[in-house]
């Protein structure tokens, strides 16, 4: 996967993501956008797969957007089993849905993700509705997580997360980070639109054979949310 959080030249926060996964053809056919309604109002909107109740991509209007990128770390089998038995752990996709349902803003979302023990590790990319509200949480199952925040005043107006810790270099065999960064810099902070972000998400390697869908969101303007199923 590739997820990007960013702030444009006017201070508006945007979020772009490609979801790459195995079972690609199956998942393309199952991709749906769902508006979760509460009291006849949209509580949160997600992109998911029919029959999958968790969430890997979602937006709470006027609050925050969130996506998950896979993190491959360590042994999992025993931890998952023990965690489930002890009922202390949450599947990551359930945590994202709970966060969309319960957290009222960017700060609350970060806190909820940061403090919850999860079955799997992952990269949680969160974008808020106000200036400066963008971060990548590199989440361990338990213990300390790394929170990498946007810092536009010092030139870090976007952050690209694929499937590797941001403080390391991705392997040459799977370097989607470099083309994404190059494409973001080429677009520039002054030229962020839904269409220009779809161009970034269509950059070769960023868009690849495992990409099932692309999404652009801006929590301050939830109506801009656009989803496309990809057939590269």
């Amino acid at each position, binding site marked *: 996967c590739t997820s990007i959080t960013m702030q444009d030249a006017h201070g508006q926060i945007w979020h772009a993501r490609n979801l790459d996964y*195995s*079972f690609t053809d*199956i998942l393309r*056919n*199952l*991709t*749906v*956008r*769902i*508006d*979760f*309604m*509460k*009291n006849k109002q949209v*509580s949160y909107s997600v*992109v998911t797969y*029919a*029959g*999958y*109740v*968790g969430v*890997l991509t979602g937006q709470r209007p006027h609050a925050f957007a969130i996506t*998950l990128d*896979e*993190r*491959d*770390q*360590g*042994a*999992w*089998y025993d931890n*998952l*089993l023990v965690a*489930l*038995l002890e*009922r202390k752990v*949450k*599947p*990551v*996709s*359930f945590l994202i849905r709970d966060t969309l*349902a319960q957290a009222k803003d960017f700060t609350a979302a970060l806190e909820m993700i940061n403090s919850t023990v*999860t*079955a*799997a*590790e*992952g990269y949680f990319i969160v974008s808020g509705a106000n200036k400066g509200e963008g971060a990548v949480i590199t989440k361990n199952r338990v213990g300390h997580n790394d929170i990498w925040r946007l810092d536009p005043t010092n030139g870090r107006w976007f952050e690209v997360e694929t499937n590797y810790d941001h403080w390391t270099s991705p392997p040459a065999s799977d370097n989607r980070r470099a083309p994404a960064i190059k494409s973001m810099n080429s677009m520039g902070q002054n030229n962020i639109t839904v269409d220009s972000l779809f161009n970034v998400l269509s950059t070769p390697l960023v868009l690849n054979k495992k990409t099932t*869908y*692309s999404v652009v969101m801006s929590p301050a303007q939830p109506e801009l949310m656009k*989803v*496309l*199923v*990809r*057939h590269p």
Partner: protein
Amino acid sequence: PTAPPVFQVDLDLQPSVRWGHIIQKYHQIVKDSHAVIRSKVPEKLIPIAEFIAADFDNLLEQPYADELRGIALTANMSLGDIVLTNLVYDISAF
């Protein structure tokens, strides 16, 4: 690229019925897909899904337990299969 279908899920409905309209529409493809996914995931993951399904209400929180039960019922599929595909990230990410 194509735009995906858009649905609403009403959180004011009981969890067991709130996905019914989507599953009815995708019934066959969900069933076929689950069969493919089940055949391709590592064999050692299947017992985990079946273990969770066997103690479903104690291991999964609400509303997810009832939502998954409703999906299994609507799709006429086993809880084990529904659990497997819903937890596929957590049990296969590594």
